[in-house]
C-alpha cells in the first residue's frame, strides 16, 4: 500500500467533511452546490480508502507466497525511486526555502526579499560562487524594478513590516 497516498486520501476526506459540515449552516440555496459536490467527494474518498486497504490486503497475502531469490543468482541492483528517503533532506530544505521566501515577501516585500533570496539559494544550494550569486540577485531585482516599477507601473507588495521599519529609521 502506498501509505503516503492513503494519508493524502484521509486528508482529502477531512477537507471534504469540514467543508460539508460548514456548508450546513448556510441557507438552502447557498449550501446546495457544496453539498452536491462535497458528499460525492466524501464518498469517493471513502471508496479510495477502501480500495487502498483491499489492495494492501491482497499484496500482503501475495507477499507470503512470493518466491525467495534464487540461490547463486545475484539480485539486480534496485534503481532508486525519484523521491524517497534519499531525497527527504533536500525536499525539506526546498520547502523551508519556499516558505521563508514567501514569508519574507509578505513581511519585507519584493525588493528586499528578491536579492537576498536569490543570492542565498544560488550560493548555498546551487553551488554558485558568492559574487556570481549576488550579481544574479542584483540583476533580477533590477529587472523586476524596471519591468514592474517603471514599465508596467505596478506597485509590488512593499511588505507588512518593512514600511514601519523604514519610517522608524526616518527613511
Amino acid at each position, binding site marked *: 500500500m502506498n501509505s503516503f497516498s492513503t494519508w493524502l*486520501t484521509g486528508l482529502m476526506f477531512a477537507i471534504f467533511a469540514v467543508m460539508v459540515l460548514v456548508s450546513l449552516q448556510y*441557507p438552502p*440555496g447557498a449550501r446546495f452546490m*457544496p453539498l452536491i459536490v462535497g458528499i460525492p467527494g466524501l464518498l469517493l474518498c471513502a471508496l479510495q480508502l477502501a480500495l487502498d486497504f483491499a489492495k494492501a490486503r491482497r499484496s500482503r497475502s501475495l507477499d507470503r507466497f512470493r518466491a525467495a531469490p534464487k540461490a547463486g543468482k545475484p539480485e539486480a541492483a534496485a534503481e532508486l525511486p525519484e523521491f524517497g528517503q534519499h531525497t527527504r533532506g533536500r525536499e525539506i530544505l526546498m520547502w523551508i526555502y*519556499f516558505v521563508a521566501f514567501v514569508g519574507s515577501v509578505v513581511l519585507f516585500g519584493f525588493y528586499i526579499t528578491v536579492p537576498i*533570496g536569490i543570492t542565498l*539559494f544560488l550560493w548555498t544550494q546551487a553551488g554558485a560562487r558568492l559574487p556570481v550569486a549576488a550579481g544574479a540577485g542584483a540583476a533580477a531585482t533590477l529587472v523586476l524594478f524596471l519591468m514592474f516599477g517603471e514599465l508596467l507601473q505596478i506597485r509590488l507588495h512593499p511588505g507588512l513590516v518593512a514600511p514601519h521599519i523604514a519610517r522608524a529609521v526616518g527613511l
Partner: protein
Amino acid sequence: MIETMFGALFGLVSSPHIMGLMLIAVIFGLLVGVTPGIGGKLSIAMAIPFVYGMDMVAGAVFLLTMHAVNGTSGQISSIMFGIPGDGDDAATTLDGYPLAKKGEAARALGASITASGVGGIIGAVVFALLIPFLEPIVLQFSPAEFFLIAILGISFIAFLSSGDKIVKGLIVGFWGLMLATVGMDPQTGTARYAGDHLFLWDGVSLVTAVLALFAVPEMIALGTKGGSISSVSAEDKNFSYRQLLSGILEVPRHWWLVLRTSVIGAVIGMIPGLGGSAAAWLCYGHAVQTSKHPERFGKGAIEGVIAPETASNGKEGGSLLPTLFFGIPGSSGMAVLLGAFLILGIQPGARMMTDHLDLVWTLIWALIVGNLIAVAILLVICRWVAVLTFVNGRYLVPFILLFVTIGCFVSDFQWQNLVVLVLLSAIGYGFLRADWPRAPFVIGLVLGGEAEGSLHQALQLWGYGFFLRPLSLVLIAMIVSLMAIAVWRNLRPRRHGRQVGFGG
C-alpha cells in the same frame, strides 16, 4: 465565415503589437521547451502575470503561441543526446539518436523541426475544418448538459490520464469544484467559507490555485532532483546546414505519412486526457506498421523521427477544440491555458461559436503563424539551443519562485494570496509525490462557477427532471460507466508483465 476567417488573419498579421508578442512568445516557448524541468504547464503559469493588462486577443495569442511551440524544441536533446525532455519526445529518441550517432544529427533535426511545425499547422487546419460541423452540436447543449459536461470532463480527464487512478482524479476534480464554491454565492449573496476575509469573497484566486498546484510542486521537485537533462559531453555530431536542408526535404518527401500522422495527432488531441505521448507513440507505431521496411526502425529511420513529431504537435490544434467549445481541456497543459483564458475574460462554451468566432479564428491563425515562426527560428539556432540542456535545474529554482510569487500577488494585488499559495502548494506537492493527477483540479475550479450557474438554471427550467433529458441520460450513462470501469480496474487481479511500456 470566410470573412471572419480572413479578417482574423489580417487582424493578426497587420498588428505589429500582436506580431511582436508572438515573436517573444515563440522565443520564450522554444527556450523553456529545451530547458530542463520547465514544462509547458509551468511556463504558461509563469507567464500569466505578464498578460495582465493585455487585451483578450493579445493575451490569448501570446499564451497559446508559447504553449504551441513549447514541444517543438523539446526533441533537440532527444536527437543530440538520446535524452528525451519529456514523454512526448521519447518516441523521437528511438530513431533520432541513432541518426545522430551515425553523424546525421542535422538531418534528423531538420526533419523533426520541420515535421513538428507542419504537424502543428495541419492540426490547426483540422480544427478549422471541423468548426462548421461542430456548430449545430454545440448549440444543442442546454444548461443541464453543461453541468453534466463539467462532471464528465473531470471524470474523463481523470480516467484517461491516469488509468486506474480515476478515483483519485475524481477526488482532485471534486475538490476543485468544492473550492469553486468559496466566496459569494450568486443566488443568496452568502459569503461561503470566506468569513471576514474580504479577499476570499471573490473566490479563490484562479492564478494562485494554478501556480500552487502546478508551478510550485514542479519547482520543488526540480530543486530536489537538481541536475540537468544531459550529462553526456557535447561531442561533435558533424552538424552541417547541408544536412539540415536534406532533413527539411525529407518532410515533403514523406508527405503522405506527415498528413496521416498530423490528422491522427489532431484527433487524439480532441479526446480529453490523451496527451502528446499517446499521439507520438501511436503514430510511431503507425509509421512502423505502414513502412515497407519496418526493420529500419530503431536504427535511424527518418520516418521514425517525422511521425511522432507531427503527431505530438498536431494534437495542439485538436486539443483546442474541447477546450474552447466545451471548457474541457484536451491536456493538462490546456487545463492551465484554460485557466489563463478565463483570467483574460474568455469564457469557453457555446458562446465561443456565436459571439467570439473571430477570436477562435485568431487563435487558429496564431497556431499556424506561431509554428511557422518557430520552425524558421529553430532551424537557424537549433545547434546552439542544445547547450541549454546542460543547465543545472537548481539554478532556475529561485527565478521560478520569483515568477510564481509575483504572479500570485499581481493576480488580485492581495498579499493574502501568498498565504493561500503556500497552503495549496502543500496539497499540490502531496498530489505530485503520491502521483495523483492534478489536471482535474483546474477543470473543477474553472468549471465550478459555470457548473453551479448551469445547475441552478437547469433546476429552474426543468426541476430535477433535467436528469431525465435524453442528452443528460447519455452523459450520466457515460459518467457511471467510467466510474464502473475505474472500480473494476482497481479491483481486478493484475497479471505480471502487463506493465511493460510501449517503449520497452
